[in-house]
């Protein structure tokens, strides 16, 4: 697949019906509105931005951090210009307003889903879906939300690769936060792999390269273990 870089204002096509995301129509032509990679699909031409903030959309699964407990709502930081609101009724079990901070305190991390976003960008969150819960262990790393699709891969291929090759638990939130669970060295390796993906997010054949990257990392790890055994014999 040929991928070209577009600059805002670049004319991409004469067919105005092919206008996809990251484009706009001016004088009967489809133009790029963001700086990014041109993606020529079957029906639409879109431009995938190389940078940008997370803008919440309904049914996105995101990782949030509780910043405040207001009356009958938790206010959640979702790594976005907009804050998330988790209403007390969206907690999996019934709780009284006075008991809110017993269940979720300021600083707690939650794996949550965007239930609804209105025109004024009021973001309603929910915990009432399977998989959604408070996170007690593991670590969270943040990358640019525009690079998220590369960490997920086509139909989740990249996440599967990372999970199986590294041997750790992982959840990729749409908002650029990634939760990793496992032993300390596994987490460390997972973070290195994610940083690698982030740095090469604009290139092709990334899954294969990440596989090679992980292989090389494993090799150095075993050779180090080998060395330390040798030194013990002395």
């Amino acid at each position, binding site marked *: 697949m040929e991928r070209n870089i577009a600059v805002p*204002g670049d004319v991409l096509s004469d067919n105005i019906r092919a206008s996809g995301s990251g484009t706009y129509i001016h004088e009967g032509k489809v*133009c790029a509105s963001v700086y990014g990679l041109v993606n020529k699909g079957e029906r639409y031409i879109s431009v995938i931005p190389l940078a940008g903030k997370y*803008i919440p959309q309904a049914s996105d699964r995101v990782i949030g951090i509780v910043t405040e407990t207001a009356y009958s709502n938790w206010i959640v930081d979702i790594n976005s210009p907009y804050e998330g609101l988790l209403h007390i009724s969206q907690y999996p079990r019934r709780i009284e307003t006075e008991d809110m901070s017993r269940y979720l305190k300021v600083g707690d991390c939650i794996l949550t889903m965007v239930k609804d976003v209105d025109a004024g960008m009021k973001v309603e969150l929910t915990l009432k879906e399977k998989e959604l819960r408070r996170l007690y262990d593991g670590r969270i790393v943040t990358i640019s939300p525009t690079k998220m699709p590369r960490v997920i891969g086509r139909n989740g291929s990249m996440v599967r690769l990372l999970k199986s090759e590294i041997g750790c638990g992982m959840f990729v939130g749409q908002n650029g936060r990634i939760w990793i669970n496992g032993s300390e060295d596994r987490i460390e390796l997972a973070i290195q792999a994610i940083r690698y993906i982030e740095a090469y997010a604009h290139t092709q054949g990334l899954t294969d390269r990440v596989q090679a*990257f992980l292989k090389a990392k494993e090799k150095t790890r075993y050779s180090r273990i080998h060395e330390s055994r040798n030194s013990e014999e002395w």
Partner: protein
Amino acid sequence: MSDKPEHFIIDGKRLDGRNLDELRPIKIEMSPLDRADGSCYLEWGNNKIMAAVYGPRELHPRHRQNMTRSVVQYRYNMASFSVDERIRPGPSRRSVEISKVSREAFEPVVFTKFFPRTAIDVFIEVLQADAGTRTAGINAASLALADAGIPMRGLVSACAVGKVDGRIVLDLMKEEDNYGEADMPVAMIAGGRITLLQMDGRLTTEEFYEALKLAKTGCDKVYELQRQALLEKYGDEHPVDAEDVSLEGDTDEQ
């Protein structure tokens, strides 16, 4: 400060050896700032400009929020050491005005409707000034906005024209700006839609149209350089900032 030269144009060449329709050399560096969402460092002749863009981000105070669109905030500031005679730091009448007109050069270009209730902050820091800092600032801001992934109708390119020795010239330098007969900064989206046009001094109607035409050719040249800078940022397969995680480095380690 140097005195007024007797002639600005000698044998068709200007004081620094340029032709009448020639720009000063431009150097662009993308994303020099780590903590900004988008940034750009630009040198244009002896002008040195740093631009940083933050956002879209939450806007405070809350009453300034717009429920239907994002608010563009633009701060043009000259460092106290940017000119020969130290200037008093902080906003001045001049810098407040330049901030306003520059902001208005971007407001019709940025798709603000996508980000209701937020602010897009642009900071322009003039580190060294040598005439034409507002146009240099707009060029840098345009690149920093693109770098931050903010949707826009196009890149804004800016350039000044003026009149010295009775002739219309492109991209005034310090002496020409100080002692010339007219100075006219212009900013436009590629294609020629003008978003900023100011003038001080005097031009006849004919001269004005001639100057505008010359400004367009200048902006087109600037646009090509801006575009090149953006394409080059991701041009090579191995970006510089990926060095510490590159495969090659790891195999050498063994």
